[in-house]
Structure formats: structure tokens, C-alpha cells
């Protein structure tokens, strides 16, 4: 028992280390949504209003959509301790990611220990710790824990909700039932996809418990109503044009031409099927991910390749099982995870389908444990062999993450913008106007975040200094359009890393 606790503590420490080590500099910059979160969190902390002057909003206006509030308020509370910096923006995600590892252990443990399960004692013994270790080392989970992604916090709330509901399944105490649904509601206020996943989970579980526990029906209905009351604001908001703005922008159906209702009825269901199945593509899971440089290292899948045989083994073992609780939970989670994500484009999308990581990790862990306990000979050799391969694959991932990724994908993370702000601060007091070229995507927002209330002008690349400014000094910041040796260039901002790539030129006009 003591050894088991020690193993859990060690895995947790490893998870914390992998999620917090150099988190402020790797990934190598704040991407634009992180900046928006940071700006709003800081405004809330200092003025009690968002960047548009709305006091304590329930939904934050952002770039072309409205953000759910929980992550921004979490960052605001962290900023009150750590100050306005990269760490504060990423801290809630990394902390939620680390705690999810521990929670995942208890979730699997309670799930396999449910009385309705007929499961081998060896699986009960090894599965929770194996699952915990695999999630701690998962490149998919590490990656999203290290950026200021709301989805990771939402996943934590959802997992905690699932854990409480499994507890309720075991002991029928109403407090767990209520707690579980409150956390589901909280996850819906944290990330968009959970606006669909949480109500669906609520509906499925409420129906299941209603049928399975006839003595508790009144209690179940009463507790279930709490969830509805809690999500009424989000339902109301989702039905407004503001609330559905994001969906309209990213709708998977918008890129298919279907004018009449008949055409839509014919084409749209297949678009949805196409998107849905894409989340189970081997190429997506094991080879290339979703192709977004911010979501994974190029050339790496979301799972390690050595995990494939165990995923197949775990899945086939689960299919063979009779009606058991964990079978329903795993299949339910796998089916639910891509449901909202398949409505949007691009598809597949590793951020929107992060929930998939939980059932997939359970399946891989099952595969490993079943293979191990069914081995009659060479158990130790198998373990050593597996550890060597897994470690090597993980080291390659870590090497690419800390060494290649910051150089190759620096621009995906808005790298270079902080360096521009440092140059602006360096030249402070030497200019009357600050002008920024529009082609430096969103630089003005970075200036807004790192420096408070700076007046600046964003211009087209064809901009020339107006005549009325002739006697004024202008600090003009523009991308490096080529090798121009001009005396007016007084400084340059470089991308972080040792490639010495010029990101922007600072002109004194």
C-alpha cells in the first residue's frame, strides 16, 4: 500500500514537472487568445471591467466571438498573486492539467471498483496507476496543459464531475450527484464544446440513473433541475446572435454549397458524418495530428506510435465484455467527445476533442495491463522492453518540444511580439507617435498587454508619414520586407531562439 502511494506521488510530481517546467518561455510566446485572456483578466482585476468597459461580464467579448468566463476569472485571481505575465495566464491550465492526473487515478479506481463490474482483480490493481502514468506522459495532454487553453480547465471540471457521479453510482449519496452536475455546468462556462457535451452527459446520466434507481427518482429529478437552472444563462446566450457568432464563423456546413432545404438535408448529415469519423483517423491520432502548429509538434501525432497495439488490444477486450459500468463510461466518452467538434471546421481538431484523451488513455492502459497479466513468461522482459521504447519515444518528443518546436513554430505562438514591445520600451520618450504595420498580426494587442494604455496607430503596409507630422518623431514598426539597409532603421526585433531571424524592423521617421 505504501509503495502504491509512493508511485502515485512520484507520477504526480512528474506530471507537475512536465506541465510547469519553463512554461513561461516554452511555448515561445503568447498566442493571441492568451493575450486577450490576459488583457481582460488584468482589467477585471484592476478595474472590475473587461477591456470594453463591461463590469464583471458573464461572457467576454473577444476577437470575433464571446469567451466563456471561468478561465478569465481564474487568470485574474492568479494575476493578483503572480502579476501580469505569461506564467499567470498559463497557470490555471497547467494546474488543472496536473490535478487531472491525480483525479484520473481516482476516477479509474472508483470506476473499476463499482460492484456491478465483473473484472479481474489484477486489472483493478494495475489499471488506475497505469492510466495515471500514461496521462502524465501524454504528449496531447502535456501540450494543452502548457498553453493558456480553457479546454484543459473545462476538462478538469468535467472529469471531477464524472468522478463524483461514479461515487454516486457506488453509494447513492445525493451530494455527489448534485456536485457532479454543478461541475458539469462549470465546465460549460469554461469552454465552448462543453456547452454541448455537458448537457448531453446530464441527459444521458439522468435517464440512466432514473431507470436504474427507482427508489431515488424524486431526488434524481430534483437534483437534475439544479443543472438546468445553472445553465439557463448559457442557453439564453447561445441562442442570441452574439452567442452563436463563433459557431457561425466556424460552422462545418458553411463551406458546402447547399441552397435549398432539400439540398441541406441531403448534404449536411454527411458533412457531419465525415467530420465525426475524422476524429478516429489513424493519421490524426498517430502521425500528424490536426496540422495546426499550435496544437502539436509537426510530424507528431497525438498519441505515441508504440501505443497503437495496446489501443487495439484494449478496445477489442472492452468490446468482448458483458454489460459493465466501465464499458458504458468508456464508450459513452468516446462517442460524446467529437460530437460538438464535428460541427465545426477544421475537422479533426485536437483542441476541441481533448475529452477523447480520457477514454483513449483508459483503452491503452487496459491493453497494457491485459497483455501483462496474460503473459505466462517473460513478464519482466516485457516491462523492461516497454519502458525502454516508451522512454525513448518520450525523450524524442521532449527533445522536439524544447528544442525544435520553439524555433519551427515560433510564429504560431506569436513569438517576436514581446521582443517588439521590449524595443518600444527601450525607445520610450524618443518619439511622438507609435505606428505599427497591420501585417504584424495583432502586435497592437501585445503592446496593450505588456504596456498599459499606449496610444498607437495601426496602418497598411503602403503607409507614408503624413505631411502634418513632418516635425513629429515617429517610431514605425513593420515586418522585415527584405534586406533594406536604411539609416532610418534604428533597431530590429528578433525571434527568440538562436536562429537570429528578424521579426520586425524599428524605424525612426
Amino acid at each position: 500500500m505504501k509503495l502504491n502511494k509512493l508511485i502515485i506521488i512520484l507520477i504526480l510530481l512528474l506530471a507537475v514537472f512536465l506541465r510547469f517546467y519553463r512554461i513561461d518561455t516554452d511555448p515561445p510566446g503568447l498566442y493571441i487568445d492568451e493575450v486577450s485572456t490576459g488583457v481582460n483578466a488584468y482589467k477585471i482585476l484592476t478595474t472590475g471591467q473587461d477591456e470594453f468597459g463591461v463590469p464583471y461580464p458573464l461572457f467576454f467579448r473577444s476577437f470575433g466571438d464571446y469567451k466563456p468566463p471561468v478561465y478569465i476569472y481564474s487568470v485574474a485571481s492568479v494575476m493578483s498573486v503572480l502579476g501580469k505575465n505569461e506564467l499567470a495566464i498559463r497557470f490555471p491550465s497547467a494546474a488543472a492539467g496536473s490535478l487531472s492526473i491525480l483525479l484520473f487515478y481516482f476516477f479509474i479506481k472508483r470506476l473499476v471498483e463499482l460492484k456491478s463490474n465483473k473484472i479481474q482483480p489484477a486489472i483493478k490493481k494495475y489499471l488506475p496507476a497505469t492510466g495515471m502514468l500514461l496521462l502524465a506522459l501524454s504528449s496531447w495532454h502535456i501540450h494543452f496543459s502548457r498553453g493558456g487553453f480553457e479546454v484543459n480547465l473545462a476538462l478538469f471540471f468535467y472529469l471531477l464531475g464524472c468522478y463524483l457521479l461514479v461515487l454516486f453510482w457506488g453509494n447513492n449519496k445525493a451530494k455527489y450527484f448534485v456536485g457532479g452536475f454543478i461541475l458539469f455546468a462549470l465546465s460549460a462556462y469554461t469552454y465552448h464544446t462543453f456547452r454541448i457535451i455537458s448537457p448531453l452527459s446530464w441527459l444521458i446520466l439522468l435517464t440512466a440513473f432514473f431507470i436504474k434507481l427507482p427508489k431515488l427518482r424524486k431526488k434524481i429529478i430534483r437534483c437534475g433541475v439544479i443543472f438546468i437552472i445553472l445553465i439557463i444563462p448559457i442557453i439564453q446566450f447561445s441562442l442570441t446572435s452574439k452567442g452563436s457568432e463563433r459557431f457561425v464563423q466556424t460552422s462545418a456546413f458553411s463551406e458546402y454549397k447547399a441552397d435549398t432545404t432539400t439540398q441541406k438535408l441531403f448534404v449536411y448529415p454527411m458533412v457531419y458524418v465525415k467530420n465525426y469519423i475524422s476524429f478516429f483517423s489513424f493519421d490524426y491520432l498517430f502521425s500528424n495530428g490536426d496540422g495546426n502548429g499550435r496544437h502539436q509538434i509537426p510530424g507528431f501525432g497525438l498519441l505515441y506510435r508504440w501505443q497503437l497495439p495496446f489501443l487495439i488490444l484494449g478496445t477489442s477486450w472492452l468490446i468482448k465484455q458483458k454489460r459493465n459500468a466501465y464499458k458504458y463510461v468508456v464508450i459513452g466518452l468516446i462517442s460524446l467527445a467529437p460530437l460538438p467538434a464535428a460541427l465545426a471546421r477544421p475537422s479533426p481538431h485536437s483542441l476541441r476533442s481533448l475529452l477523447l484523451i480520457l477514454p483513449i488513455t483508459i483503452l491503452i492502459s487496459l491493453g497494457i495491463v491485459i497483455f501483462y497479466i496474460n503473459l505466462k513468461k517473460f513478464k519482466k522482459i516485457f516491462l523492461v522492453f516497454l519502458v525502454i521504447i516508451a522512454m525513448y519515444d518520450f525523450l524524442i518528443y521532449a527533445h522536439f518540444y524544447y528544442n525544435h518546436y520553439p524555433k519551427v513554430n515560433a510564429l504560431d505562438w506569436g513569438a517576436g511580439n514581446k521582443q517588439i514591445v521590449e524595443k518600444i520600451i527601450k525607445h520610450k520618450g524618443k518619439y511622438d507617435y507609435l505606428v505599427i504595420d497591420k501585417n504584424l498580426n495583432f502586435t497592437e494587442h501585445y503592446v496593450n498587454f505588456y504596456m498599459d494604455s499606449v496610444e498607437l496607430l495601426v496602418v497598411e503596409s503602403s503607409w507614408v508619414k503624413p505631411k502634418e507630422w513632418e516635425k513629429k518623431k515617429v517610431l514605425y514598426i513593420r515586418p522585415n520586407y527584405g534586406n533594406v539597409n536604411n539609416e532610418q532603421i534604428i533597431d530590429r526585433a528578433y525571434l527568440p531562439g538562436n536562429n537570429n531571424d528578424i521579426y520586425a524592423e524599428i524605424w525612426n521617421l
Partner: protein
Amino acid sequence: MIKKILLTIFILYELNTFRMWNACRDFSDKFHFSYPQMGLRLEDAVHNDIGFSPELVRLFHNKPVFFVNSIFSNYFHFWDIRFGVMFFSIVGYFGIFCGFWYLVRSKFKYKLMMLALLLMLPLVEIFGGSISYDARLILISFPYLVFSIYGIWGFMRDKKGKGVLIVLGFLILSIWYQYVFSGDIFFDCVKK
């Protein structure tokens, strides 16, 4: 009787999917292993390792690892669900997986050999660039087609009435899907 009729419709439909294969001149590059390309990727990776000891660079970027990763990458494209539902149809792809399921569970004497053969068939495409497309086509598509029929038949026999309904549902879905997305095959192959 219903099972046999449905199986016949399934076979006819699957034969029809050959139209898809026939519309192509060759598979796209992502299915083929290219040694020079692997070398370029390796070189590119090494360039980012300034400041590392040569031993460490070799540990992370070496030909065996890059070779295995490239093969895996090519190989996964064949088992990719998006490729499968276009070239074998949804019901055909489902049939292939059922085929594996029933073959593994069967008491057939040579099942391991057959499994290995089926799993290794895509290697013909990955390495067999010099073989004509038609020959590769027959080598790859035909065995899977037969295997898919075996899987669907096994499923319908195993699940009885429910199995027939599921296969029928998949069949309708396949026809619908391929009608809407027939042009998508050219993401995976070069047009004739």
C-alpha cells in the same frame, strides 16, 4: 435468405467502388516511401540541433528512427478511416474490421499467416512504386474486398437480425456518403 440477398447487394456495391480506384492514375505521394525525402527531413531536423553534442543529435535523429517513422506514417494512411470510407466505402471498411475480429477469434489453422499477409499488403504500395498501378490495385484492393465480404457475412451470422439491420444501415449510409463526397478520392490519389 435476407442475409444472402443483402450480401449480394453488398458485393455488387463493393465491386462498384472499383470505379473509385479506377478513376485514379496512382496514389498520392503520402502513400509512398521516399528515401531522399527521408534524408531531407533528417537533415532539416539536424539543423535545429546547434549546440548539442553529436552523440545526442544521433540519438534523436538517426536513419533507423526516421525510417520507421516514415514507414509508419505511410502505412497509417492506408488504415486511415478517411481513406477507408472513400475507397472501400463505410460498409466495406466496417467489413474489413469485422473480418479481422472474426479471423482472430476463429480456429482457422493458418490465421496468423493470413493476418500477417493482410497487414503487410499496404507495403506493396509503400515500396512498390515501380510496379504498375493496375497490378498494385489488384494486389491491394482485391484481397481486402474479399476479406470485407467475409467480415460482413460473419457479422450478419453472429448478430442475426440486428446484424442485418446494422449492415443495411451502413450500406445506405455508404451510398449516401459516396454520392456526396465522390470527389474526395483525389485527396488520396492522382486523377487519371
